[in-house]
């Protein structure tokens, strides 16, 4: 009697346990890891990225998750520190056992994390800008990128310059990862467009006064200046350019694409020419533009929820997360299947234009990722052609 009861009890127990665990397995969330620079020097990148990631995960879960399973975001702050990014990437992979990693925010951190994900065979979608993140593709098997390369923005600029009869230019770049990458592409691509770089100098990211550098440019035959930097120096050079009463046009890198920069330049930015992502000029793009639904939706949702202006950098997070959603919906929770899917993604419309990847190209974007704009009356204006 006792024995039967015991067996009965055991079978009930195991039944409950098995159904419970089976239920759990069916509904176990898909874990996505994120490492972004919420704090530290690059917090202007990581902060909107964190916001966007959390927002997108909420959207996906409100829509019923992926194949009925919720998404769980495990997000850590790298503090803009490459060594911390590596530690955290290892933590995501070994402890949290995530299916894929999004981030890190900067190129330096992304470069540092690449060996970790390649070794662990976990797909990563980096938010860094440097082209080296996705090249050479043989060494980047598990790494993808959502940020269009510097080369695309430079091609667009050179194209525009040629059409406006400019063939002698001065380039000034910050000695940062961002600046060096821009400088390298500008020098490499110039011959292709028959553009002559008559002045080329770099300056420190902490520079507070660039009048001396601009004075040297004034002594050359340059017909335009391209400045490639991010942060304070792009404002400093804009102000100094205006203060020196320079008449040749100033082209900025896409890093200038934030309303705050126009404000900080205090009127000096009038006439500055910049290639920007569509998200910067979301209000200006036509409704029949294929990007309009995504870009306008992201801007509306973000600004409603966080009460602050949307940024390009948050847009990267949006694109990465939705690409992962599509992948998971299609192939399920399998790291190498996700990688396979990411590598062949095509026709995906994101904030950074339309992605068409291939085993030879882990970015998948073209020049259409940028739009040339000019600062006019304290706002952006699309340059019509």
């Amino acid at each position, binding site marked *: 009697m006792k024995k039967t009861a015991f067996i009965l009890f055991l079978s009930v127990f195991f039944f409950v346990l098995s159904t419970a665990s089976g239920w759990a397995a069916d509904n176990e969330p898909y874990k996505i890891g994120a490492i972004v620079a*919420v*704090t*530290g*020097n690059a*917090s202007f990148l990581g902060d909107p990225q964190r916001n966007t990631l959390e927002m997108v995960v909420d959207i996906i879960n409100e829509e019923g998750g992926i194949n009925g399973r919720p998404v769980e975001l495990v997000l850590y*702050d790298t*503090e*803009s*520190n*490459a*060594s911390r990014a*590596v*530690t955290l990437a*290892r*933590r995501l992979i*070994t*402890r949290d056992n995530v299916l894929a990693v999004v981030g890190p925010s900067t*190129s*330096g951190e992304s*470069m*540092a994390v*690449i*060996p970790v994900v390649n*070794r662990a065979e976990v797909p990563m979608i980096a938010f860094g800008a*440097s082209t*080296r993140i996705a090249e050479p593709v043989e060494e980047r098997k598990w790494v993808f990128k959502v940020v269009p390369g510097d080369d695309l923005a430079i091609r667009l600029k050179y194209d525009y310059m040629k059409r406006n009869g400019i063939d002698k230019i001065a380039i000034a770049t910050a*000695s*940062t*990862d961002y*600046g*060096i*990458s821009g400088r390298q592409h500008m020098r490499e691509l110039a011959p292709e467009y028959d553009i002559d770089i008559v002045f080329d100098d*770099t300056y*420190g990211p902490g520079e507070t006064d660039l009048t001396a550098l601009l004075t040297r440019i004034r002594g050359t035959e340059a017909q335009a200046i391209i400045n490639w930097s991010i942060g304070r120096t792009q404002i400093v050079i804009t102000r100094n350019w205006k203060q020196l009463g320079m008449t040749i046009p100033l082209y900025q890198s896409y890093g200038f694409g934030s309303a705050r920069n126009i404000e900080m330049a205090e009127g000096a930015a009038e006439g500055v020419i910049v290639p920007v992502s569509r998200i910067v000029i979301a209000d200006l793009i036509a409704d029949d533009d294929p990007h309009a639904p995504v870009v306008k939706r992201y801007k509306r949702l973000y600004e409603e929820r966080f009460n602050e202006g949307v940024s390009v950098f948050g847009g990267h997070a949006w694109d990465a997360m939705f690409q992962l959603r599509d992948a998971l919906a299609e192939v399920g929770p399998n790291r190498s299947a996700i990688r396979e899917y990411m590598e062949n993604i095509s026709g995906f419309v994101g904030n950074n234009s339309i992605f068409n990847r291939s085993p030879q190209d882990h970015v998948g974007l073209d020049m259409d990722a940028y739009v040339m704009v000019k600062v006019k009356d304290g706002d952006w204006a699309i340059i019509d052609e």
Partner: protein
Amino acid sequence: MTTNTALKVSSFTVFIMILPWVLNLSSATAYYVDVMIFVAIHSIIGCGLSLLLGYAGQISLGQAAFYGIGAYTSGILTVRMDVNPWFAMAAGIFVASAIATAIGIPTLRLRGHYLAMATLGFGMIVFIVFNEYIALTGGPSGFGNIPPLSLMGHPIESSFSFYYLSWLAAIIVLTASLNIVNSRPGRALRSIHDSDKASASLGINVAMAKVKIFVVSGAFGALAGSLYAHYLTFVNPPAFDVFFSLKVLMIVVIGGIGSVWGAVFGAALLNFLPEWLVFLHDFDVLAYGIILLLVVMFSPQGIYGLLAGAAGYFFKFIRKESDHD
């Protein structure tokens, strides 16, 4: 080494050997093994500054330079010239020692503020070189693909194995530091700290003794940097900026400048605090500043001094109690 120190070091070694097994029991703490690797690396560079600051009384605000020199030498030799990582590590230590000698001879004639500013300036110059000498250092982007250290053909790249390697190095450095402190050259240094006049009158070459310990601190810094490079397999300049030099200073001062053990405590504190102070976000720096100020103002012997004092008091108390029995 006195028996007391030997006992401390061996019990600490046992603790370190067991720790990852305990941490691995729970997935919530397994990650702390990674944090502990940085505790080890920072302890090594901290021991160097502790010898210089706590024993010789000479300040350096440029330790990040040696850390960087070690890391970059290791990286450049292994990646560009295919040198064996162990040789690259030795080369890094050698290069850093040579540079420390060249810098130390003119710098250590300076006193107090001059020395602080000179080492700060030295650190800034080295940082600029890392950033601007692109052909050699890869510039601001740094470079990756640094091979891991390996032992008899087995690469030491998992957290678990690197934990043991880094702590092996840290314990050797700690033991060596304790040995130095408790022997002829160490006593000479401590005597300089109290009265350089009297030291000179007893035949101690004060200037040379300072340079020597500066070289030792540079060598430890380079060892730490090389470990860092082979662990991360990637180096870029921000890891070696002025703030890292200040961080090393904080490790030593907050940990306690009276003893090289302080560096270990300081390294642990400054690596675990950010884990616990996540809610502070960027303001953890502010927290460090405040802790540093409070320590300097109210507890010059640092956390280790406080703990040692408390432990001493506690044991005395116990002994007294048992005496009564």
